[in-house]
């Protein structure tokens, strides 16, 4: 079997486009006249084709039909709100402009604490807040969360979970093997 010292390393680099201009041109003219390097280049190209074919076949077997819905569902559950992002950005900017120092933070904390203790009205622990002597109806602060609170969930199939805040509805969507798609 014919061998060429260049075919060991340079052909693969040439194939991958890793050689710079002069060396690439020299290698190109060499391959045109060298049987061993031509054969090596053909082998490398064939290997790449096989790898690509194998990867493509495997990718085609993967079911991506639920991919986008699953991402949307996860984002909806995990992503912070727009307000949350804006608050974080504002805090980051503020932090850069006003680098925090321990005494300032301590003083601010003490002031807030004193203000809260001395100026906040003492309410009963229940949720009804009213002002004596006034005829306005009591303000009822809703405490109850109408949505279901999930403690643990296990399933042998794909399960989506979402809350509808407007309707106070919690939905556990147990995908069917045949379809699995949410409406």
């Amino acid at each position: 079997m014919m061998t060429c010292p260049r075919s060991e390393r340079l052909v693969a680099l040439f194939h991958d486009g890793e050689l710079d201009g002069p060396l690439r041109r020299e290698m190109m003219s060499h391959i045109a006249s060298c049987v061993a390097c031509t054969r090596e280049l053909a082998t490398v190209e064939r290997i790449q084709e096989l790898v690509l074919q194998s990867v493509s076949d495997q990718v085609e077997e993967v079911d991506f039909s639920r991919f986008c819905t699953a991402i949307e569902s996860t984002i909806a559950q995990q992503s912070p709100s727009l307000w949350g992002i804006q608050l974080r950005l504002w805090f980051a900017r503020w932090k850069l402009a006003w680098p925090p120092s321990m005494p300032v933070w301590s003083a601010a904390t003490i002031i807030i604490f004193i203000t809260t203790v001395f100026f906040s009205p003492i309410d009963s622990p229940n949720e009804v807040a009213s002002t004596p002597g006034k005829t306005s109806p009591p303000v009822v602060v809703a405490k109850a969360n109408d949505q279901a609170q999930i403690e643990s969930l296990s399933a042998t199939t794909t399960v989506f979970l979402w809350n509808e805040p407007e309707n106070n509805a919690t939905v556990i969507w147990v995908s069917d093997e045949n379809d699995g798609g949410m409406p």
Partner: protein
Amino acid sequence: MKVSRLTLFCFASTLLWTVQASAGEMVELSVETVLATDSSQEFDNRLQDFRQQLREFRYSSYRLVQQERRRVDWGKQADFFLPGGRFLQVVPKAYTNDERIALQVMLMEGTTPIPLMDVLLSIRNHGTFFVAGRKHQEGTLIIRIGATTESKQGNESGLPTDILRRE
């Protein structure tokens, strides 16, 4: 032997009070199964009270196919047979400190003993939630599960009552 009317009234009242007291310590579970399809524009009038919630599922037709209510003791399981050979098992676990009912819900299908879905959750008293997604007769089943109790002490599971408490 004559029984006075007063004695009879007292006996009946005591009996009624006992029945009511024992019933009050139970949990009433409700399971409503709806078949949602896109084949028509039909909306079952019996589903009016949660029409808006159903609309979120984006189907064009909703029909109530099964409705069942069951009273069970705390910690005792209630089994509901659903269309398509499915089976729903609900166990009221506890009444939590924040006035919610903790439930364990298992959805089973076919003959396999492993549940398709097993969830431990809490809903407010008189609250509901939905389990949906399984196919049935060219449509999808939407199951509304609710729980109601007058008892504030049920915790037969041995779980601490604040186990499901969250901020």
